[in-house]
């Protein structure tokens, strides 16, 4: 175990974290990622030593005979005995290669084994990939307690989370490096990924399989909360959208249900029930909008609604022509949907 910590600490200086939440394989925050970071460290050290040894031998081979030759020099004769002895050394090196490679295969196999050994009843979350956003559905034993959200996964600390991965259009890949390795979301196939967050925090994840023009802006965050906070948050998500607190928000709700918005988006408790885009019932409770593109503020909501193609060119949200008042109202309303 000391060795394990040593190896991880060697790599740690490389694991710079950003304010968007950690997104680094070298900054593990859960047992899966920790075991993978250890594996990366172990492979790096073994392979590094082998590489160094080969380079040293090449260096010695070059320098041991002083005086470089010229092309015109007569070719050297071979000494059969010497060639045989060199053959033995080469054979030994090959055998050493076999041993090292076998060893690495074995530790790799053991690591795979440890990844699947999760304990406890997992929280099951369905994650569905769309061009270029994520639909997140929290399941429950009782079907009326299913909650649909988008672009953010909240998980309780210490409890395993099983993601059931599917794709609506093309292949995507879910990767939250600080917590686990990646797993693809493939149309027509069902995959799953189990991980546990050990500490509360925000961990950034990103689509890792090229999925079209906005592949670069298909991120999400995993927010790990203490179990009681998580339970309270989930209860909040079960509720319908907040009722407008003032006139401007009420006008915004009219815009959102009357204009084209409702054709694609759902806002529970209002007439808006479209299913092509993210569920907006609690959009303001999420850290980011447009799949990790902008932080959720009233200003960024307004900017996004006013010109989605300018913010994220090629994405599927069209620009809906709104007057200045309508835009102000609808962004106020969106910002109120905590």
């Amino acid at each position, binding site marked *: 175990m000391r060795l394990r910590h040593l190896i991880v600490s060697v790599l740690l200086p490389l694991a710079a974290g950003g304010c968007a939440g950690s997104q680094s394989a070298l900054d593990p925050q859960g047992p899966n990622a920790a075991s993978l970071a250890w594996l990366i460290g172990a*492979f790096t050290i073994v392979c590094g030593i082998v*590489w160094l040894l080969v380079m040293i031998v090449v260096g010695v081979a070059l320098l041991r005979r002083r005086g470089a030759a010229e*092309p015109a020099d007569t070719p050297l004769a071979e000494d059969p005995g010497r060639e045989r002895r060199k*053959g033995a050394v080469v054979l030994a090196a090959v055998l050493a290669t076999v041993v090292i490679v076998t060893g690495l295969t074995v530790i790799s196999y053991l690591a795979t084994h440890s990844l699947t050994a999760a304990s406890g009843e997992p929280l099951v979350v369905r994650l569905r990939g769309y061009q270029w956003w994520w639909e997140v559905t929290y399941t429950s034993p009782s079907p009326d307690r299913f909650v649909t959200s988008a672009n953010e996964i909240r998980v309780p600390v210490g409890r395993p989370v099983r993601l059931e991965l599917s794709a609506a259009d093309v292949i995507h890949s879910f990767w939250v490096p600080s917590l686990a390795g*990646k797993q693809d979301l493939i149309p027509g196939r069902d995959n799953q990924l189990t991980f546990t967050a050990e500490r509360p925090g925000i961990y950034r994840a990103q689509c890792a399989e*090229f999925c079209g023009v906005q592949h670069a802006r298909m991120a999400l965050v995993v927010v790990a909360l203490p179990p009681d906070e998580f339970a309270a948050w989930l209860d909040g998500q079960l509720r319908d959208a907040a009722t407008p607190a003032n006139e401007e928000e009420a006008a915004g709700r009219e815009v959102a249900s009357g204009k084209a918005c409702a054709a694609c988006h759902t806002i529970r408790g209002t007439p808006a029930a479209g299913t092509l885009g993210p569920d907006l019932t609690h959009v303001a409770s999420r850290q980011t909008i447009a799949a990790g593109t902008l932080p959720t503020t009233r200003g960024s909501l307004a900017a996004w609604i006013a010109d989605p193609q300018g913010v994220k060119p090629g994405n599927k949200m069209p620009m809906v022509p709104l007057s200045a008042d309508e835009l102000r109202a609808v962004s106020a309303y969106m910002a109120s949907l905590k």
Partner: protein
Amino acid sequence: MTGIPHDLRDTEVDRDTVERRLAETWRTRRGFWGAIATVDHKIIGRRYIVTAFVFLLLGGVLGLLMRWQLATPEGRALGPDLYNQVFTMHGANMMFLFAVPVMEAMAVYLVPLMVGTRNIAFPRLNAFSYWIYLAGGLLLWVAFALDMGPDIGWFGYVPLSGPQYAPGKRADIWAQMITFTEIAALAVAVEIVVTVFKQRAPGMTLDRIPLFVWAMLVTSFIVMLAMPAIMVGSTSLILDRLVGTHFFNPAEGGDVLLWQHLFWFFGHPEVYIIFLPATGMISSMLPAFVRRPVFGYLALVLSMVTIGILSFGLWVHHMFTTGLPRLGESFFTASSMAIAVPAGVQIFCWIATLWDGRPVFRTPFLFILAFFFTFVLGGMTGVMVASVPLDTQVHDTYFVVAHFHYVLIGGAVFPLLGAVYYWYPKIVGRMMSERLGRWVAGLIFVGFNLAFFPMHILGLQGMPRRVYTYQADLPWGPLNMFVSLSSLMLAAGFLLFFIDAVRSARSGPPAGDNPWDSPSLEWATTSPPPPYNFARIPVVTGPSPLWENRDELPVASGLRLDRREIVITSVADAVPEARESSPRDSLWPFWAALTTSVLLIGSIFSPWAVVWGSIPVAIALIGWFWPKGTPEDEA
């Protein structure tokens, strides 16, 4: 049997007359149509090499564009659509239009010379291959210039490349470009196999074949077994897109992962199709620069064959994150690790060669040393990505981008550049500059490592590949800037290389027959070689013919001067069996390539093009094979 002029043999006249008559028989006619009609493997090989390097230059510019875009977070140099075209073009261009063709091009030029024959087997097929390759390259680049460049990644995963998510013709152009380049590559593979099997100089038994030729033989077999997979794949994709088949449509019983299996069943061997010729170049160049034969000839041959076989058992390691059954994944981890063993054998044999040699520090040798440093590192990261759990963290990240550039540039392009410096005097007749060569090797070696090593770290820090930008609050900015600046150094090295290659063709010092005092047969003839390669066919008595016969070369005589005649020898022992003819120049391969191109490009727009397009193809093929009553038709 009638109308044949005097059946003149090279035994009946003096040496000058032999050379004059042979030159008359084998020469390529002057003028435009003569150039189109030529079937001389040297002229076609030279064209092939130059074209491939032009594509390298273009692909390198695309690489620089990407680095410009990624130098800073939220870069605005290219938009997302253009960036996606650019990285797809970069990958597709480098793999399909540069790396594979350039290795085959070197073989087209060198293999006939190295085995001591006068032309490649099926020279007209060779001409056809070049035209088809050129057409495929033009298709891709013209489409890109018209903003119709593919934007689906070089491995074109469905459904992103399928009918629903890739409207327009971009994906069709990508898939059809693959058809072009695979036809060209398969044709060359057939030629190489038959040349090596049947056209080796008398006495060149299996254990005397130069190692580059062995490498190309193994490579050709890999090509023939792997490339049909991508042909099946790209054809199915085009059918899905054009006539509504459902190979990759899960809603109708198709499967998305089928594409990945087909692609990587080709795509992984593809890496060895690029890498094995490079190892052959190392093995063939090394003796001249350490002044002794290579150590472990048999071990090197066997390890190449082993790599060839194992290369077909690795494809799933590109699919470790797709959720395949665990048992299968473990098998592919083991087989991917296992390939480190034959690769290791090669490295150890080369080091053993160095150990007792006397190094000659010339540019080709510098590239060999750069290869050791870089390729072994790439091999180490290869061992890392072979591990399933480790791969789940680095797959599709910049770590993998770093890994395969280390393997492909370090493992294949460095030996290739060394090979250009080494064989340039044979091909052009003049030496490249040794002074510039050192700068080229230094800039490329240092620039490459500075540009690509940090990508390992970026990948581990979470940066996925194929992103057109990243946000400022992610910690990747400084390293990306460093990478982008270093790529300029790498580019400067390549620029200098191109300058040296162009300049030396006019003003380099004359090379002489054998400037490096190398031991293999291509150095026995003049530089550049005459159209007939060898006035008399060499007779081989050992693995290093020119070192074993330093004073005079044993040769065979008795070949006719009035027809293009080559010697056919037996497969294992290279015992002469026949004086076979080699075809004359012909325009038909060009017409066949042109009509085939019309058919293939037409089929992007209408499936009926396959029907009406096949008529001119058939006419061209009949014209090609219809006997013309020349002396070559005699039997």
